């Protein structure tokens, strides 16, 4: 079907061909019998000099020609019917000529239209759809190095970014059904409306593929909620940033890593989705280190910290399912977290032993003296998960056992106890206090098949006074 602003077609039967296509050459002698106009994509004299040369492919582009030959019936300036390739009975139907091509085979597939040629499609999209992008254009002088210019303008996170050309941004926008002008969220700290277009520009810069864009959008929506509080996560002196956990069948479809080195380098989807979110906070929201970002140390995950849950062989319900989503839904959960810390127990053989070592390590989160203030993501490696599964433990049993082991005596937590100044007020000496609030331990299954290891990702000030984990569905 034609697009808005398309060059109009004359009434009658319109045919689009190219000489390069064998099927077009086969049907060329038939065209004078019925064609009102023939558009040729390559040779201006094919099939006859009377053909109209679609030199800039504007007709082909705007009328969504994907295959040549295409025959379109136009009535009162409106397309009412089309057929592609050579299917004799369809050509007979659209032309009304019973004898058409009787000596030809009943069927021949067509060829790809030049307007969808992968080598041309990005330039065509920019030429014909570039006006849909409203962002300010930055013209580069001949001697400008585009990579250096992006650094100089403060648009990068310290690593080079992919220059956001019209072609790349339009290609990125193919990854979503949403309009470029749609507002996704209000981004702190400057509280700026961010559009799909700005998300796409920053996703290009981060190195995303178009199919990652819905994940970037969902993660951005999640971090910009009042519950997640990206303003506070950004402004804090603690070393936290948005940790993004991805769930659902789409994680595999876009090639995310949930297995070996899932929390590390090497996977484009993992790294660029998280990076895009942070670039948007920086470039659109205005959140930059040394300005509103006051982190004392920061952590390398503030460039990007995004991974998928290893769902296909997990003995645990997934994080998203535990938070109310269906296994078939794609979802992102954002968590204000620091870098991961390894939990090692290579001799563990029972779930009870595993709960013991998990609890002992979790107790030390941020400080062995601090309770209730911070949540944690416990990333269970497959070899540890196998131990849980062998004893029939699922998520609920594990969490119950962990919370039971993390009820701490006030005598060890009060100011000065253990020779450590920080802690709870002295009047709580005889109380028993939990290390974590009831929903403060988030469990995720991820990692490679070898290694009796898990990991913990410490959080930031939790609850309504700080940051809550937020899960959002990823929509096309």
């Amino acid at each position, binding site marked *: 079907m034609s697009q808005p602003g398309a060059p109009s077609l004359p009434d009658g039967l319109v045919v689009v061909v190219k000489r390069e296509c064998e099927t077009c050459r086969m049907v060329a002698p038939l065209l004078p019998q019925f064609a009102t106009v023939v558009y040729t994509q390559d040779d201006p004299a094919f099939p006859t000099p009377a053909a109209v040369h679609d030199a800039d492919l504007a007709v082909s582009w705007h009328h969504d020609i994907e295959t040549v030959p295409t025959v379109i019936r136009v009535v009162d300036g409106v397309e009412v019917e089309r057929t592609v390739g050579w299917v004799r009975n369809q050509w007979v139907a659209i032309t009304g000529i019973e004898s058409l091509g009787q000596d030809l085979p009943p069927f021949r597939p067509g060829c790809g239209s030049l307007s969808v040629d992968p080598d041309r499609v990005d330039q065509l999209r*920019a030429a014909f759809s570039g006006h849909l*992008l409203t*962002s*300010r*254009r*930055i*013209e*580069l002088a*001949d001697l*400008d190095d*585009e990579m250096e*210019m*992006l650094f100089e303008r403060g*648009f990068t996170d310290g690593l080079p970014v992919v*220059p*956001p*050309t*019209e*072609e790349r*941004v339009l290609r990125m926008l193919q990854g979503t059904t949403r309009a470029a002008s749609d507002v996704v969220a209000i*981004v*702190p*700290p*400057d509280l*700026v409306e*961010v559009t799909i*277009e*700005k998300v796409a*520009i*920053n996703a290009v*810069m981060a190195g995303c593929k178009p199919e990652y864009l819905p994940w970037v959008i969902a993660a951005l929506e999640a971090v910009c909620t009042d519950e997640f*509080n990206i*303003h*506070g996560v950004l*402004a*804090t*002196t603690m070393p936290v940033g948005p940790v993004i956990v991805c769930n659902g069948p789409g994680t595999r479809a876009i090639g995310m890593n949930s297995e070996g080195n899932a929390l590390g380098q090497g996977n484009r989807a993992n790294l660029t989705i998280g990076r895009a979110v942070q*670039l948007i906070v920086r*470039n*659109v*929201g*205005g959140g930059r280190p040394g300005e509103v970002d*006051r982190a004392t140390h920061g952590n390398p995950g503030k460039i990007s910290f995004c991974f998928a849950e290893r769902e296909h062989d997990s003995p645990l319900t997934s994080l998203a399912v535990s938070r109310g989503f269906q296994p078939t839904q794609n979802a992102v959960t954002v968590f204000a977290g620091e870098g991961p810390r390894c939990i090692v127990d290579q001799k563990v053989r029972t779930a009870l032993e595993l709960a013991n070592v998990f609890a002992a390590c979790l107790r030390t989160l941020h400080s062995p003296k601090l309770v209730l203030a911070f949540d944690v993501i416990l990333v269970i490696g497959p070899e540890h998960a196998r131990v849980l599964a062998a004893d029939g433990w699922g998520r609920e049993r594990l969490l119950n056992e962990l919370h039971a082991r993390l009820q701490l005596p006030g005598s060890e937590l009060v100011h000065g106890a253990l020779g450590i100044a920080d802690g709870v007020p002295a009047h709580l000496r005889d109380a028993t206090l939990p290390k974590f609030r009831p929903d403060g331990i988030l469990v995720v299954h991820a990692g490679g098949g070898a290694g009796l290891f898990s990991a913990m990702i410490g959080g930031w*000030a939790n609850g*309504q*006074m*700080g*940051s809550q984990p937020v899960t959002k569905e990823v929509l096309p």
Partner: protein
Amino acid sequence: MSRTLLDPSSERSTLLRERLARPAHLSGQVVGLLDISKPRGDVYLDRLEELLVEAGAKVLRYKKPTFTKPAPVDLRHEIATQCTLVIEALAD
């Protein structure tokens, strides 16, 4: 590929405003102190208030519900309409 890039920023231009002249002395000024709700911040602000009152200023105290989020709009409006001076500083 073109040599034109798209601006990834919010494209907001910063407004430059002239600062008001510093007052010659604090006498008669209404000074706002905002407690951001961090532990022991009140100890520091109490001492600051003592010094300001000694210098002849009237001090109004405000408090954010949580240090992790920006001050609510209503609170910012209250400070702006009630004070003639605000001591602005970033601390942790």
